[in-house]
């Protein structure tokens, strides 16, 4: 009898828990009427984290439609953000909207996870204020006939340099790719005469994300990302290897990521490095006037990576109209000017681009000067893995002399276009 009572109690417990869960879900559904939008984003530093939260607060207070955005921050982690986002959305637990990189688009559209923005864009009066070319790129990225990605800002890579170090080395700002390679060599110096290198000419990024500055070397020799196995592309790769082997970059270069190249530049360990306006404010805070920028110089070819940051709405979003209001705020509303003024990213809104703060900035000028030859990496379903795993490991193998430049480029070509 006692055992039967225990069993009955267990059954009762299980049934109660099941009903309690059902009641909770009903309550959640009823609560969704208030249009709460969950938004995922990443931030390069704590200031940008606070900025995003301020923008969310501003939007929530001023949208006039009772929409509440809840912004949740996740680390970019060299692209791991997109993979985590995919896992979350596939598992049914992702956000309504998210900050975005175009390279992730094919994976999400192939699995029908992104909302089609065409019906919203059709009647949106802010669309005309954004270059149509950007929308074309957004459409192309998804490999469908629809636009799934909303432009927000772009980042164009340029070369940071320390004018005082150029002066000490007795060189001018490079005008050609050959000048640039020569400058890397000239800026590598033993400043205290102890026989060891104290300043390296260039801060090479060998970890994830380093493929973007690396691409400029490939084009500098006349190669291209379309075919990495041509002799010109291989020559660019050889330049990359040479500057490592000759000791013109820190020996930690094969594992250096964003944090390391920026820290090395700010500490004076490197004289040049490649990044975009996202780090410009921090550079000025550190060096004042002793930091400037030049566009990656032309060789036989010229290219620099145009980074992109957009926003997307997921198909699973239950309040798409409210979500689009938020995306529109970021693309052409106050969110566009607030974010880009603070982060010094290149705005997508023409009206914001024309503001003096963007027109009179030396880093923004270097970005704007590069627009004509800036490009993006091929957006393929292999790109994310190629960037995260294949590129850093293959480059490291080449830098260590384990494989030749030609072998490295064969591997990179095969894995990217498989």
């Amino acid at each position: 009898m006692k055992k039967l009572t225990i069993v009955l109690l267990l059954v009762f417990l299980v049934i109660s828990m099941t009903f309690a869960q059902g009641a909770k879900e009903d309550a959640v559904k009823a609560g969704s009427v208030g249009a709460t939008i969950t938004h995922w984003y990443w931030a390069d530093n704590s200031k940008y984290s606070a900025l995003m939260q301020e923008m969310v607060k501003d939007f929530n207070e001023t949208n006039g439609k009772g929409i509440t955005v809840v912004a949740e921050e996740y680390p970019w982690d060299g692209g791991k953000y997109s993979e985590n986002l995919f896992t979350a959305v596939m598992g049914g637990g992702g956000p309504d909207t998210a900050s975005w990189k175009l390279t992730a688009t094919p994976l999400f559209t192939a699995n029908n996870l992104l909302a089609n923005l065409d019906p919203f864009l059709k009647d949106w009066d802010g669309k005309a204020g954004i270059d149509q070319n950007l929308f074309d790129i957004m459409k192309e990225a998804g490999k469908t006939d629809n636009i799934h990605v909303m432009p927000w800002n772009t980042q164009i890579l340029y070369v940071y340099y320390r004018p005082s170090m150029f002066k000490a080395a007795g060189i001018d700002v490079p005008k050609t790719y050959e000048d640039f390679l020569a400058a890397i060599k000239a800026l590598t110096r033993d400043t205290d005469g102890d026989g060891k290198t104290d300043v390296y000419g260039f801060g090479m990024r060998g970890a994830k994300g380093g493929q973007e500055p690396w691409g400029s070397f490939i084009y500098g020799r006349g190669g291209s990302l379309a075919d990495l196995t041509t002799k010109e592309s291989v020559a660019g790769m050889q330049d990359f290897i040479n500057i490592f082997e000759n000791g013109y970059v820190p020996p930690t270069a094969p594992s250096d990521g964003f944090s390391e190249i920026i820290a090395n530049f700010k500490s004076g360990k490197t004289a040049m490095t490649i990044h975009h306006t996202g780090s410009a404010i921090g550079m000025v805070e550190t060096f004042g006037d002793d930091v400037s920028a030049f566009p990656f110089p032309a060789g036989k070819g010229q290219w620099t990576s145009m980074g992109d940051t957009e926003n997307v709405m997921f198909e699973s979003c239950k309040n798409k109209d409210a979500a689009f209001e938020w995306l529109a705020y970021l693309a052409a509303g106050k969110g566009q000017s607030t974010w880009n003024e603070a982060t010094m990213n290149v705005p997508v809104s023409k009206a914001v681009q024309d503001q003096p703060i963007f027109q009179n900035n030396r880093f923004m000028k270097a970005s704007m000067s590069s627009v004509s030859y800036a490009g993006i990496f091929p957006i393929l379903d292999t790109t994310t893995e190629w960037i995260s795993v294949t590129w850093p490991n293959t480059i490291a193998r080449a830098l260590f002399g384990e494989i030749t430049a030609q072998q490295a480029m064969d591997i990179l070509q095969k894995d990217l276009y498989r």
Partner: protein
Amino acid sequence: MNTRKFAIYPYLLIAPALIFVILVVFVPVFNALLMSFQNYDLRRPSAIGFSGLKNYGSVLADPIFWSSIARTLLWVLFGVGFQFILGFALALILNQHFLMRGFVRSVSLIPWVTPGVLIGLMWRWIYDGNYGVLNDLLIKLGVCDEFIPFLAQKSTSLPAVIVTIIWQGIPFFSIMLLAGLQGIPSALYEAADIDGAKKYQKLFFITIPSLRNTIFVTTLLRIIWVANSVDVIFSMTEGGPAYATQTLSVYIFNKANSMNLGYASTMSVFLMILLSFVAVPYLRSMFKKH
């Protein structure tokens, strides 16, 4: 009749636990096994389908797979080996009577209770080739005259991550072995003292034989855990540079993260087979006990 009626109760009572285990362990394992026979790449959902032994063939022909297995063996051999030796030494020390013993025992547990990702990040900064405290210490001690890029060169990156996993796992062995040490009757040592046994004789003829079962079980468990661990390596090097720290678990993790679940599942099957050489003796010893 009554006997039969009562015999059902034990099964009813363990049913929730059994169902739970089936759902969270056996179903995913079976699913992974199924995926290993499929071209299951979420980046190309339209191509998902049965592919027979294709994944198995590709994995066996993959040189990175074989080098990852070799690295896994080194990772486990040195990682668990030194964890055991140092953990045993620490257990012997903690078994002595000394001032603040309780405090020292608690503090020695810190590496074990710290999350693996945090450990990875902490050691990554310790090893940092530009600003790391280890390099600073080595230079100040005159061991080297310039910073060593521990995690950026092939020769030092694997040993560096192995040292980290050793640091993490020492407390596990020390606590388990300490519990075993406290269970050894003191009469054995007293008898050995009367017989004039030396310290090393007591260690090899009393302590180690008495701890045999504990050593066996803890070592097997730790081999399985270390072979499966991803967090420490991934947060330190992500398997690089040039795959120098990529164990099989990290390779599986990377492939799964790239959404090639079929290929990742196939490698998981191989890892499962590899670990069964350790798991089967462990399970047999467990069943023997019962």
